[in-house]
């Protein structure tokens, strides 16, 4: 028996291959021209998304937040050089950092972390297509995916090692599963949505807002009848998964870390005015995209159903919360981007003018008119998206839109190779301090971190008496950087005063060429490291 088996399988092998080939050929014949075009467009959207998210991805080093999340991942991966500087339990849950740590077990680096973040960004584009196809058909899915692929907001956030991008991915998966559950009437999709909702929160605690969005949707959609036990079951699954966060804090005896951060977030001073989101996010999403989404709600008002309620709930929950919440961050509303793109895709795919458009001798059919509108909006997104991933060199804004801090990585590497281990640095603020610690592997203190625990992020330690610390040689180096100086001239001046008072010697400096007010290129300091002593 054992001798005959190999020969039998060798003879039988071509049969399944031939069958498979026949099936593929049959499917290809079945695909109509429209479907083929749309499939090509989906692939093009994903390719564009990948291109915009990968282009010169590693050109700039991490910014402060990226350094913190990557540092946490390195600490989970047992990177001995970074573990002392980046406590694992700081502020947020650790799902993304834990996934990243699996790669970091092979070695810590910038590119891998950004590729992982990009993967979530591209995944969000794919999920947007699937959701659009599910809710409004393939054409709407393609358009929505294309818009999200090119959207500067999504591009900029996806290129950074932030928690918001992966959180938006899980939120979009949840959105898809909720829609799928309603359309298929299969309870298991609702439970799966509960699971991915849990992962949304495990990525970043503000994912809880999406849970609020889901509740709002079910409350506002009387046609969707859901039994309490089923709702509780899905919510229970979400809660069971979310439980990983408090349990990890409790078992690691770091319960206070989360509590302190919550208290800090609740009582910290506003960092932006009420107009921050209305003025920044629509522009970042694309004004035409937002307009198309809003216009569609009017133009297609007769089609409004639970679908739009679902998407609007997904947009409204985080938007309303963060509009009212005093602390605002650019990337906090990224989870709203897919539903906005979906609503815009709905408009562009499902609404058409009543008759053909005429302009002089040119006649455009309604379908081509909308295709042209979609293309125009896509171009209007692509240009600023390209501008955002190419670091600007204009005066005062040379801090790239991609989130990296020019020179931070180079500085850190210089520190690692030229400054004795165990040295300690004073920086203007915690942003540069994080970069010094991540790239330089040296302890750094942000001068602007308040000694008052009520007024500082509990993840940071304050330097209580920087003057004394320099005099007693606890701090041996001072770093001035243009990024932090532009945010706080007061602490910039104080830091330079220490450098002058304590025999500051310039050990390292970086300058960049920027456009001056008269348009001519001028050299401006970017980073300066001083050695200080009593």
């Amino acid at each position, binding site marked *: 028996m054992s001798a005959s088996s190999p020969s039998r399988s060798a003879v039988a092998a071509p049969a399944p291959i031939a069958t498979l080939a026949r099936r593929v050929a049959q499917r290809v014949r079945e695909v109509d021209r429209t479907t083929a075009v749309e499939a090509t467009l989906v692939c093009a959207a994903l390719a564009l998304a990948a291109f915009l998210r990968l282009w010169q991805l590693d050109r700039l080093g991490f910014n402060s937040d990226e350094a913190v999340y990557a540092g946490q991942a390195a*600490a*989970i991966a*047992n990177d001995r050089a970074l*573990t*002392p*500087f980046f406590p*694992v339990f700081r502020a947020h849950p*650790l*799902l993304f950092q*834990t996934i990243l740590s699996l790669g970091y077990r092979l070695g810590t680096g910038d590119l891998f972390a950004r590729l992982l973040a990009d993967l979530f960004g591209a995944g969000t584009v794919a999920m947007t297509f699937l959701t659009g*196809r*599910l*809710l409004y*058909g393939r054409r709407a899915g393609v358009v929505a995916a294309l818009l999200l692929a090119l959207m500067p907001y999504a591009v900029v956030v996806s290129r950074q090692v932030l928690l918001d991008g992966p959180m938006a991915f899980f939120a979009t998966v949840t959105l898809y*599963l909720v829609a*799928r559950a*309603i*359309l*298929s*009437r*299969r*309870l*298991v999709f*609702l*439970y*799966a949505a*509960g*699971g991915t909702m*849990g*992962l949304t929160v*495990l990525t970043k605690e503000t994912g809880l807002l999406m849970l609020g969005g889901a509740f709002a949707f079910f409350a506002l959609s009387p*046609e*969707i*009848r*859901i*039994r309490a036990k*089923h709702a509780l079951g899905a919510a229970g*699954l979400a809660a*069971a*998964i979310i439980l*990983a966060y408090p*349990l*990890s804090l409790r*078992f*690691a005896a770091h319960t206070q870390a989360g509590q302190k951060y919550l208290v800090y977030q609740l009582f910290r001073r506003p960092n932006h005015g009420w107009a921050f989101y209305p003025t920044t996010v629509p522009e970042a999403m694309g004004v035409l995209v937002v307009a198309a989404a809003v216009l569609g709600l009017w133009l297609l008002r007769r089609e409004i*159903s639970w679908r739009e309620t679902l998407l609007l709930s997904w947009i409204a929950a985080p938007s309303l919360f963060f509009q009212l919440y005093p602390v605002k961050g650019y990337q906090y509303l990224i989870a709203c981007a897919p539903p906005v793109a979906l609503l815009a895709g709905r408009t562009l795919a499902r609404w058409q003018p009543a008759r053909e458009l005429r302009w002089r001798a040119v006649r455009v059919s309604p379908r081509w008119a909308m295709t042209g509108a979609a293309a125009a909006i896509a171009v209007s997104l692509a240009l600023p998206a390209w501008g955002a991933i190419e670091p600007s060199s204009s005066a005062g804004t040379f801090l790239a839109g991609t989130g990296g801090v020019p020179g931070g990585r180079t500085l850190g590497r210089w520190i690692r190779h030229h*400054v*004795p*281990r*165990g040295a300690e640095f004073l920086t203007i603020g915690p942003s540069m301090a994080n970069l010094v610690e991540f790239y330089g592997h040296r*302890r750094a203190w942000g001068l602007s971190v308040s000694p008052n625990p009520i007024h500082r992020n509990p993840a940071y330690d304050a330097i209580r008496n920087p003057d004394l610390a320099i*005099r*007693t*040689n*606890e701090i*041996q180096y001072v770093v001035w950087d243009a990024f932090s100086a532009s945010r706080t001239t007061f602490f910039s001046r104080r830091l330079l005063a220490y450098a002058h008072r304590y*025999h500051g*010697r310039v050990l390292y400096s970086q300058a960049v060429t920027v456009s001056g007010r008269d348009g001519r290129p001028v050299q401006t300091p970017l980073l300066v490291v001083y050695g200080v*002593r*009593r």
Partner: protein
Amino acid sequence: MRLRPTLLCVPAAAVAAALAAGSAPAAAGHAPTTPIRHFITLMQQNHTYDNYFGTYPRGDGLPAGVCMPVDPRRPHGRCVRPFHLGSNQIAAGDPAHSTATARREFDHGRMDGFVGALDAAHEDGRLAMGYWNGSDLPYYWNLADQYVLYDRFFSSAMAGSFLNHVYWVTGGPAGEPASETGGELGQPLPRGGGRGLTTIFDRLQAAGVSWKFYVQNYNPHLTYRTFRRFPADRAAQVTRVPLLSIPRYLDTPALRAHIVPLSQYYDDLLSNRLPAVSYIVPSGPSEHPPSSLASGQAFVRSLINSLIASPEWKSSAFLLSYDDWGGWYDHVKPPRVDKYGYGFRVPAILVSPYARRGFVDHTQLDFTSILRFIEDNWRLKPLTSRDAHANSIATGFDFRQPPRPPEFTSQTRGNPLETHVRRPLIYGLYGGAAALTVLLLALALVPPGRGREPALSGPGGDER
């Protein structure tokens, strides 16, 4: 053995001839014999080994069960155990530390007079038994963890600061002291202002080996000729810098130029002008009780860190020591090598890229061991029989090892930044959460079996 000071002196003519040659580059015969091209020695003040390292986990520290009799004549009477300073009502002051006090404490080798001697000086005798620990001396204990701690390093003379500083630079007792009761400024200046003294710097100068004497808060107008015009605390500069008691170092510009303010140390490190041999003395942060230990450690840290951060680090060695015992208890009976010494043990730490890591060196040493190392390293003749017969501090080096990379020593004990991360917990909880979700997704993607799955009510069915 009694040293004869007159025999220890090099004729002034020979010294003058050497000076005339100036400080030329080291002759080929005086090139360093080890990788150490820069040797720096700092003299702090007034502590014993047991006072600083008595409870250090390694080395010859405070013996278990020791209890110092209040009255040495009643060894079984009341006694005082060593205690951590600051942990009781006994004020941490400046114990008496005259030569007479030292002799009472030594008590002809019985080492039982530490409490009684201070009582006799109308002080709280219990203070002598006080000690500091790692929480008070985190930087020094960390240095000991990383470099070399000598636990048999004795002060050269059972006397005060002046005589021990003189041993530090001459290897001898500076001629016949006017009295043996003090050792402090104003009492035992050698007759003639130390005119006949030969110092290690004479040897270095003659050999063309560069040297400097760095003085914190240096006042060039304050010498043995003028010290009486200054307040006592400022006048102590003459105690700490024996060269200021030797006329030729004051009157010969080529020699006097080597005595410089401490700020030059930092400049020299930056400009690659650090001499082959550097002597450093402090002013305020000398740790002389009751001054601040933190301030002294910060001062020493600044010196060592500046050296470590400089290009000279890879060929340097820094020796920290203390001039005398300061009145504090130390349990090791100092060997008698001559009329003057040894005195009680003092702390001594060697910092160098070639220093053994975390090594406690039990070699018997004193300040002349520093001279012995300099003489051996630059092939110089010994100054006295003391340094000629002394062990060298070189036992703390391991020149077979590659130079250690520059690293600042922490000023806190332990590593407060180090956090214990429970990685299996994180992977378990987050991995479990992800696995549960993947399972739910997999179940959702499986086509439903007819009638087996509860259904949601609602519109449904109109997927587009």
